[in-house]
């Protein structure tokens, strides 16, 4: 078994997948294709990557207030990441996940970690997010 990080539960749930990590914030409006799960902000380092089914680790969301709506669409359509890890709570993504849970029963698990723990995350490593906020890191 790999390393375990203890995060703060933002939206409880279980989700796992390969990590997709960026140190840059992302606006989902204009940055995330809700139909495919592709990151489409051409100025962002993850441009062209498919985030659907991954454990997406990003410091925070950013930009327009429509980020939450796009994330809700992705959650309903099944093109959202399997789980999200942020540095500290991100209320915009949390909101979308909470609404997805309240209205569609499809909340996306979210965990907030420290900047130091975030630094341990490497793209491609398998990550298992648990409802209690634990993130287990496996092999690449």
């Amino acid at each position, binding site marked *: 078994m790999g390393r375990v990080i203890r995060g703060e539960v933002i939206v409880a749930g279980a989700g796992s997948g390969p990590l997709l990590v960026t140190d840059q914030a992302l606006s989902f409006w204009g940055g995330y294709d809700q139909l495919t799960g592709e990151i489409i902000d051409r100025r962002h380092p993850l441009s062209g990557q498919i985030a659907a089914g991954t454990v997406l680790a990003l410091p925070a969301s950013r930009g327009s207030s429509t980020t939450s709506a796009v994330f*809700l669409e992705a959650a309903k*359509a099944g093109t959202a990441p399997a789980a999200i890890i942020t540095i500290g709570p991100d209320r915009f993504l949390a*909101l979308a996940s909470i609404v*997805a849970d309240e209205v569609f029963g499809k909340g996306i698990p979210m965990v907030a970690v420290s900047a130091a723990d975030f630094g341990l995350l490497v793209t491609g490593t398998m990550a298992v997010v648990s409802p209690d906020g634990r993130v287990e890191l496996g092999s690449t």
Partner: protein
Amino acid sequence: MDSGRQLGVGVPAGLEMTLELSARDRELLAGDHGPGARLAMSILVRVAGVTGVERLMDITGAHIDSSLYMGDATLAFAERLASLGAKVAVPSSLNVSGVDEHGWKDWPVPPAWAASAHRQMVAYQTMGCTPTWTCAPYQTKARPVFGQQIAWGESNAICFANSVIGARTERYPDLLDICAAITGRVPEAGLHLDTNRGGQDLFRLRDIPESIQRDDAFYPVLGHLIGKITQERIPVIEGLTVVPAEDQLKALCAATASSGAVALLHIVGVTPEAPTKEAAFRGANPERIFDVTMDGLRAARAELTTSAGAALDMVVLGSPHFSVAEFRQLAPLLVGRRRHPNVEFLVTSSRIMSLLAQDAGLLEPLEAFGGKVTVDTCVLTTPMLRPEIKTLMTNSAKYAYYSPGLLRTAVVFGSLADCVESAVLGRVFRDESLWVA
């Protein structure tokens, strides 16, 4: 504890101990004011829990960005609230919608999209919102006043309301703005509290000629530069030696809220909470200091353009929505001229502003030029562009920032005059005389 169970799955442990709810909050959460209000309150309380606030507070107005049709989920959310009988508790204006209600057939908008987007417009009006359909509500009767506690969505409007007017709003995302409007409550946190409104980053203008400061293109470029550096912080701009017009401040706010997440900025000697630098920082020292030079502005201006060539398919103006003052500025540039047949020319605005412009005789030159006006929405939020449109030109930093990702077009940033000139020539033209080193 009862309220803990009502919060549902995913409430961080201990939330019910830290969030203090009023008697009315508890009634709303218990469903005493109907199931729609209960759903809105449940979402609001769970979000408040994520950020760890101690209590909620009252608001007296809202601006709803949730009106944007983004797909099945936003429509289902709106119709769920409306069908549960939810009504807004405070005066609530509406941001742009997903379709120009009466003009969409002039464009290749898919009828199925128009029908769904229209259902979403109806749902928010059913909840009692005012059909303003604009991203510049601060230029309508919905304009708040200094010190007013409001819950606004739409990033440019948030920044303008806080910065230029001195109203108090946090950055409310879609989905939450309507919950705040229905309950009349928001988390007591962030920019609602005076103590959180002091500046953090100082941007000093260094040797920026007044000829540049007076130019409309300066404000979106400056905003793009500052937003990119400051991100979600509160920037203070020092050294402006001209008094900017309201629409220039509008362009500045929209740009900082696109390249960054700026919800509040201060301009020393211009905005209401910044009579002096000390007041702007509320007595504290700047956390970081940056000098804004012509070189920095030139680089920021270059970043707003992604297209290298002269090819041009469309000019689009009006993000945020064009005001009467902007129509008045545009009209004389168009008189006696006509756009190139290969270049479309579009202004996005609100119904109220375009009607005022029409009454003032400002739309005739635009029509004679071969230009069009779209209201209620904008090119980023309704699928109105023909697929052949590959390169856009605009004077808006917000359009320039978002077009490549959302519309998959190349974009050219230029001044208002550059945009008109290019539309006439049928190829990109930019007057570089102000910007050359």
